[in-house]
């Protein structure tokens, strides 16, 4: 099972955990297992068409999956998958 690091804005959908484990041999499989386990997370990661949202980036270790085969990027148990959404703490001035 790969370790998935959950960023603060999404922890409310995964029982407030900062790390979750999910199985799979590719990023796509791991993320599908993740949203199966935590269905409320789904709309925050995927658009209605089932594509990863463009303001959520996914990394395997320190590599952006957009440059390593997207959701087909292989994942092993030793890998850390990071979900990194865009954040903005300030007000909409």
């Amino acid at each position, binding site marked *: 099972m790969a370790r998935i690091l959950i960023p603060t804005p999404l922890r409310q959908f995964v029982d407030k955990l900062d790390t979750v484990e999910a199985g799979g041999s590719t990023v796509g499989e791991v993320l599908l297992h993740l949203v199966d386990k935590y269905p409320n997370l789904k709309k925050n990661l995927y658009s209605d068409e089932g594509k990863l949202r463009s303001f959520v980036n996914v990394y395997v270790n320190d590599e952006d999956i957009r440059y390593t085969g997207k959701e087909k990027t292989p994942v092993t148990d030793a890998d850390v998958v990071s979900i*990194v959404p865009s954040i903005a*703490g300030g007000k909409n001035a």
Partner: protein
Amino acid sequence: MPEVTLSNEEILRYSRHLILPEVGMEGQLKLKAAKVLLVGTGGLGAPLALYLTAAGIGRIGLVDFDVVDATNLQRQVIHGTKDVGKPKIDSAIESMNDINPNVIVDRHEVALTSENALEIIKDYDYVVDGTDNFPTRYLVNDACVLLGKPNVYGSIFRFEGQSTIFATEGGPCYRCLYPEPPPPGLVPSCAEGGVLGILPGIIGLIQATETVKLILGIGTPLIGRLMLYDALNMKFRELKLRRNPECPICGDQPTIKELIDYQEFCGIPQHAPEPVPVTGDISVVELKQRLDKGDKFQFIDVREPHEWQICRIPGTTLVPLGELPKRLSELDPNSEIVVHCKSGGRSGKAVDLLKQNGFVNARNVVGGILAWADQVDKSVPKY
């Protein structure tokens, strides 16, 4: 470049830089010759302005049109208690002049817009974005790419921050990292989500450090690397960041060649419609009258438990919005339900949810507990 020199007062002031071989006289003169634009003097901008001023940047431009509010003081350390109600730009300039009167501070007391951004930014060498909202972030990014000005970026959320440098020659830009902003409402702001007051200090000073390094030309700049900081676990992590050859603004075939409408790009309505009172809404004054008369209704507070600890209206039952769907069975669909939150947003969602589930007699308290504190009970603290 005009000849830059240091006075004896400046030599003494910058002594600890001058005896540092990596800075020295040459570096200090580079700092004095540098022109840096700070967009915003809030959480990130406050430490940035303080330290860049102390470091002896020659010219610092400030862009801000906001007013100091009491809730800013927990983190915006450039402003003091005496400054509440003053324009932030005045309060910031006062602090900066006190720290280092050698620094020339330019005031741009305006909102940065697509109309003025290029004109304001073009006179500076580096831009540091301390505004931390999506429309301004994309605006600053695009303007910096178009003008070829490095953009030192920082962003914060609750206990986490990000920082990197965008728009250097051949380097990535914010659109390479995130091609599109999230729709409004999906990501809460500090005002809604809260923020550890120290966090913008850490992230702002990462931005300040990188700005000074760029000016001095020392070390390894934070280019092509996204720094992530997690205060709760006290961890720094680094992710690889590449220029996207297909980026619409900095890619090989850019499609964006001028500034666009960033409010629209970020899905924010041009003129926020006045909240229209929906049938069934109840004002805090009417609510008070009905409570005084002894009217019977179910009175629900949908805020979070930590907000309930700050203040509450007597007689309410706490059902946080997130728990409401599984706790509907606790409510009686045949009797009236009055719902409040902090300012009316979450309770509006709760009323919608209740009505969809057959609780037809659900009513939203307009303005929430903040309106209650203003109009009914001034002893209730506002937060």
